[in-house]
């Protein structure tokens, strides 16, 4: 809801808007020349032109002990994706930064092999020659036949956009961890199976050998052993040793803390357990290896119909045998699960990083608005990823009360990985530090600086930040250090709220050394993420605006007392105003710089004077403590401040600005975005996080709604009906047409609760009163049959509860609307052309309405008398005055806000789990008939 319309250039709507909107081309002389440096199909927005692949993809590689690093598969599995990109070469690169294989396997000095349950390592790696940047996730899988029983693998998310990798590191890391966990679980299972088979083999071999030895003993009673016999005895001894070793391995693999799996997303273990339990009976087979300890879970045991083989003393040369495929290494089930997860990752992260960030920000903000977000948002979509909260520590804010602890945790690095593995990983890499003054570096990347990056840079120990570079080709900018996480969080927590930007810049900066060779490992953890200062240099404006860049955790401020206007005075106000004319995102925020619109600073950061958005939105960080309770504004009010004081301030400020047409602003933006999208090179349609259907639906609904407001001059009263809770019936013969209209109008329907939208697309039977309680928008079939007459009779009977849109005769019967909100919401002369743009426009205005309704609902004195003796009328007067003067609502707009407020009340009062009686509110107001 909050995402700014069209700030983001990204998608291409595939089943785009019809020819209707395809205008004739401009005459040659008026057309703007194309980006001069662009070749055919080049994209001026492309950040790195040199990349050889067209879109982001995921690569799985293995460091094969036979042939070295080799690519195994890519997701999406399409040759076109990687294009001319050299997968083999890149595999070599990414595998060469794996630190782990060296300390698993046989540690020197131990009697028999020891399995290390190593954590995965996560690194970011850049290859400027290839124009590729990658998040690389290394993991090891166990293979009995492999050297040291381990096979190193890695999964890499490869993108041409470095910033995407950097800024989405945590998300990527969380998602890839899931995939890796799944793979490893399957692998442990398969490994255990393999071990058991091997044990059976060994056991069998031992029996055979033993028998042979006995036979030989009996055969010669000469009293001395033949060389043959000695050989056999040695062989037997080695087999026995091997049995012990393998038993130990099996024990180790089974002792892997099973509870770990409980966190992971892949729960379908139960059926498997059941299956195993069923097999248990046959498992008791005495011939089976003695390794199965009593009481041990039989999770890893498998089909016992295995016939043991004799193991030759000398196994084949390791280069002769064929190594197991990844699919064999992990159980097939887990393998497919992993692939699904990887596909999901690919879908989630494709597209421009701006888009991802905007989504994340708006989603996080929406989650905070726990009181109002149900009205126009799909709440299920907000809640859809509860597991993520575990990984991200604190991203799931907004629904929980705040406690000190949570806040502390939120500041700490979020990727939870055991200390040990990091220490060792750091030790393994030869590190060389280089420090320089920041401005010595030429601006290499034309991209932004994120606020928290700066902050991190400023407050990190200088020896942690900075480039860490190996002498030769690999350049590691930063690795995750175990100790640093904690200390950093503490130091951050005690930061002053608004540090001076000067302090930050005058500090000793550090930069990367760009070595001749092309691999740069940028960072392994963005919680101390190190974007070199040289990026800043190219962005003077960004630095100038630093005061806005909120330094307390991520640039989002709600607290009314900390508005930029207060802190920085006149200067900022003028800036705000200039910005207001420029950017639609700011226009929305302008009415309430600190109060209704939670994102003013963000908006400012995003805007440039020429109206082109150059800086992508910043990743969302949890806001400060007081903001998460769900009642940011209310707190201020109940604390003794009169609502008027707060409101009048922003209202006076907003008077003039509100004149600047919102549509114009967002339209200019929409042009930009459409231009961008048509020439956007990579990844059409960034399907929204696991929710592409919803995305498409929005787009289509927005498109239909646009068409509706253009076609029907009486769109305003119709939309007013929906917003004020009066059921709108769309009557028509043609099902498709009716459904289309219903879809179009559905974006204006407020939800009554957490359930599905109160929209019924198609009904053929006569309506009843109960239906109006349930549904606020109904598509109704008109037939000429007697049954159809009944339908119409019902309509006419209940006409006082209904607005009726006749799709066939193009008439509308509904109450009069004279307000202003809907006029802004649905201007038939709007220049918005794209469905998704219009959808966002609608969402932004609805958000405004929501916040007004929120204020109205939660202002104590508007509903209850201040003193006990105060008469009811004065409360009513106060209420009306508030609506009219403070909220600036006119005529019927009041009804809209009142209805929304009523929904908010009901929602808040309602006990969780208990679904209250749906009630129908209505007014006795006359209806009018509108015709085209």
């Amino acid at each position: 809801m909050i995402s700014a319309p069209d700030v983001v250039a990204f998608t291409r709507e595939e089943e785009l808007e019809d020819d209707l909107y395809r205008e004739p081309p401009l005459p040659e002389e008026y057309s703007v020349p194309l980006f001069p440096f662009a070749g055919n199909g080049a994209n001026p927005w492309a950040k790195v032109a040199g990349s050889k692949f067209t879109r982001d993809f995921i690569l799985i590689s293995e460091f094969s002990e036979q042939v070295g690093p080799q690519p195994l598969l890519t997701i999406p599995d399409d040759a076109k994706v990687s294009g001319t990109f050299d997968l083999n070469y890149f595999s070599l690169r990414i595998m060469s930064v794996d630190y782990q294989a060296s300390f698993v396997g046989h540690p020197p000095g131990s009697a028999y092999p020891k399995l290390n349950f190593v954590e995965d390592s996560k690194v970011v790696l850049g290859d400027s020659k290839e124009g590729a940047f990658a998040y690389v996730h290394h993991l090891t899988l166990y293979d009995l036949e492999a050297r040291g029983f381990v096979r190193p693998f890695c999964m890499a998310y490869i993108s041409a956009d470095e910033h995407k990798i950097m800024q989405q590191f945590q998300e990527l890391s969380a998602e890839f961890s899931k995939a890796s966990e799944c793979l490893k679980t399957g692998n442990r299972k398969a490994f255990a199976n393999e071990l058991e088979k091997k044990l059976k083999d060994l056991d069998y071999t031992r029996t055979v050998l033993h028998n042979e030895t006995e036979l030989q003993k009996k055969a010669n009673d000469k009293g001395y052993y033949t060389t043959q016999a000695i050989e056999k005895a040695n062989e037997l001894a080695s087999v026995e040793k091997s049995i012990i070793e393998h038993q130990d391995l099996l024990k180790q693999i089974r002792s892997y803390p099973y509870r770990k799996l409980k966190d992971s997303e892949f729960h379908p273990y139960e059926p498997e357990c059941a299956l195993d339990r069923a097999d248990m009976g046959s498992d008791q087979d005495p011939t089976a290896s003695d390794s199965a300890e009593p009481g041990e879970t039989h999770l890893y045991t498998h089909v016992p119909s295995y016939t043991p083989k004799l193991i030759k003393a000398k196994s084949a040369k390791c280069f002769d045998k064929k190594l197991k495929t990844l699919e064999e290494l992990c159980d097939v089930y887990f393998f497919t699960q992993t692939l699904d997860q990887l596909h999901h990752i690919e879908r989630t992260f494709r597209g421009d990083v701006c888009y991802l960030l905007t989504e994340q920000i708006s989603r996080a903000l929406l989650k905070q608005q726990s009181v109002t977000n149900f009205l126009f948002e799909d709440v299920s979509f907000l809640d859809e990823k509860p597991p993520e909260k575990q990984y991200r520590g604190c991203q799931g804010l907004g629904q929980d009360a705040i406690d000190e602890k949570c806040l502390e945790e939120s500041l700490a690095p979020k990727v939870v990985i055991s200390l040990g593995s990091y220490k060792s990983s750091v030790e393994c890499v030869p590190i060389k530090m280089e420090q320089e003054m920041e401005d010595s570096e030429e601006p290499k990347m034309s991209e932004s600086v994120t606020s928290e990056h700066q902050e991190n840079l400023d407050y990190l120990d200088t020896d942690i930040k900075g480039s860490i570079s190996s002498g030769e080709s690999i350049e590691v900018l930063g690795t995750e250090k175990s100790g640093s996480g904690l200390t950093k969080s503490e130091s951050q927590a005690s930061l002053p709220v608004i540090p001076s930007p000067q302090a930050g810049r005058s500090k000793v900066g550090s930069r990367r050394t760009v070595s001749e060779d092309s691999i740069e490992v940028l960072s392994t953890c963005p919680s101390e993420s190190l974007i070199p200062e040289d990026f800043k240099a190219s962005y003077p404006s960004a630095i100038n605006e630093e005061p806005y860049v909120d330094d307390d955790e991520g640039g989002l401020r709600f607290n009314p007392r900390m508005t930029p206007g207060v802190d920085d005075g006149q200067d900022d106000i003028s800036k705000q105003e200039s910005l207001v004319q420029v950017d639609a995102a700011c226009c929305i925020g302008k009415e309430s710089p600190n109060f209704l619109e939670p994102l003013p600073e963000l908006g400012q950061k995003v805007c440039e004077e020429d109206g082109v958005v150059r800086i992508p939105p910043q990743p969302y960080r949890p806001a400060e403590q007081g903001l998460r309770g769900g009642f940011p504004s209310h707190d201020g009010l109940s604390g003794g401040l009169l609502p008027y004081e707060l409101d009048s301030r922003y209202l006076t400020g907003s008077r003039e600005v509100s004149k600047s047409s919102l549509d114009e602003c967002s339209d200019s933006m929409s042009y930009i975005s459409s231009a961008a999208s048509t020439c956007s090179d990579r990844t059409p349609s960034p399907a929204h996080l696991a929710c592409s259907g919803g995305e498409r639906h929005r787009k289509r609904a927005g498109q239909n709604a646009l068409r509706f407001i253009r076609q029907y001059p009486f769109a305003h009263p119709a939309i007013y009906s929906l917003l004020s809770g009066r059921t709108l019936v769309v009557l028509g013969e043609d099902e498709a047409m009716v459904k289309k209209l219903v879809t179009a109008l559905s974006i204006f329907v407020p939800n009554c609760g957490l359930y599905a939208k109160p929209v019924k697309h198609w009904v053929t039977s006569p309506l009843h009163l109960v239906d109006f309680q349930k549904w606020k928008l109904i598509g109704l079939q008109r037939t000429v049959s007697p049954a159809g007459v009944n339908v119409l009779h019902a309509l006419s009977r209940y006409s006082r509860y209904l607005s009726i849109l006749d799709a066939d005769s193009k008439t509308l019967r509904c109450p009069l609307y004279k307000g202003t909100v809907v006029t802004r919401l649905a201007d038939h002369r709007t220049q918005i052309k794209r469905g998704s743009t219009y959808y966002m426009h609608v969402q932004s205005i609805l958000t405004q309405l929501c916040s007004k309704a929120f204020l109205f609902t939660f202002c104590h004195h508007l509903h209850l008398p201040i003193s006990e003796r105060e008469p009811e009328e004065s409360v009513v007067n106060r209420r009306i005055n508030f609506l009219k003067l403070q909220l600036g609502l006119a005529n019927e707009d009041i009804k809209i806000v009142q209805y929304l407020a009523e929904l908010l009340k009901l929602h808040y009062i309602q006990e969780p789990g208990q679904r209250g009686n749906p009630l129908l509110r209505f007014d006795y107001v006359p209806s009018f008939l509108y015709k085209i």
Partner: protein
Amino acid sequence: MLRWLIGGGREPQGLAEKSSVQTIGEEQIQNPYTELLVLKGHQDIVRFLVQIDDCRFASAGDDGIIFLWNAQTGEKLLELHGHTHKITAMAPFSSSDVTEEKVDLIITASADRTVIIWDCTSGRQIQKVSCFHSTVKCLTVLQRLNVWLSGGSDLCVWNQKLDLLCKTSHLTDAGISALVELPKNCVAAAVGKELIIFRLSASYNGSEDWNVLEVKRLVDHQDNISSLVSVNDLTFVTGSHVGELIVWDALDWTKQASECNFWDSSVHRDVQPEIKLSQTPNETSVQHLTSDEECVFAAVGKGIYVYNLQMKRVIACQRTAHDSSVLHIEKLPNRQLISCSEDGSVRIWELREKQQLPAEPVPTGFFNMWGFGRANKQANQAAKKMQENTPTYFLELVGDLIGHSSAVQMFLYFGELGLATCSADHLIILWKDGERESSLRSLTLFKKLAQNGDLQLRL
């Protein structure tokens, strides 16, 4: 509107146009009911609503189930199963037991020839009697004597413990259709065309001494008595199927006054042949009577008549108040009258004094200045027709409630809490004052906020 929907081609011979039923537009400023709750539960016609206490009521109907509802929230409190046939009568009975604690009970009679007493708090079936020879059609509680009467083909007197104290002999097969309590331990029972007065000789010592005696039979009605209501200690009123209304003295059971032709249109010099032709007994039947100290309000056919006891004549009427028979009417304290009808609507009327004829009625509220032009005009016309009787009052329609899709059988007025209506469409609708509900919700909201501790300033 319907015409507009159908498309103008087919003009429906709408009842509304021909039969001059007063209509009110969509703008109803005086109608307070702007919120409704639909209570679902019954599976057949809901016929009876009974108030138990300030915020509870019971409903019963043809499905034999009794539901208890919270009148404020619409919450279903209890569901009482026990009858196998439809419920024919229901009465509340608050008794004080040994511990002097008030216990709310309800008595229900059903077509399965049983009567059950229920505890309204626990939903427990306290006692069940199934020794009836015929269906009990009416129940009356004599709170003073702490007994209750059941009327079927005979009249039985029961005490609270469901002991049969005494009973009459078999009266008729048709049975008693209505019972009303009179002073001096008497009851009037409507049996067909006759009105029978019984006297109870109560004994406070033991149950053996109770007796019930027929004292008088009144045979003044030409047709079956359909309604029977007590006005005050001195008067009671009966109405019959052919539209006779008789006012009786409650002490000596003599006829004080009678009105038998107020349905007759010729009296009012209103020539409407089509109505006359279609005049069936049902059109003139006195469906329901209610009264306050001054007037008796009668639902006769489709109309509502106000009969003044002092003046002994009809002072105001609305001859076609509804599209079909009026089933139930009730007088509200604020000179308002509510009626419900088979046409599925509930209407709110206001009894107003008429000023000088040529002048428009003086509006009582500010809003009437511009709000009710049309309605007033029609009321005037209706009033003009009755000039012969020179009524100085008229009934003005101030609002209608449309929600049920079938006949509204009965309603229950809960004062501030609203109005509960029950209907043949199996539903009960709670009509509420939207403004009041909204402020109540705000109150709850802030209470909850305080509870959750969200009212504290959080920095």
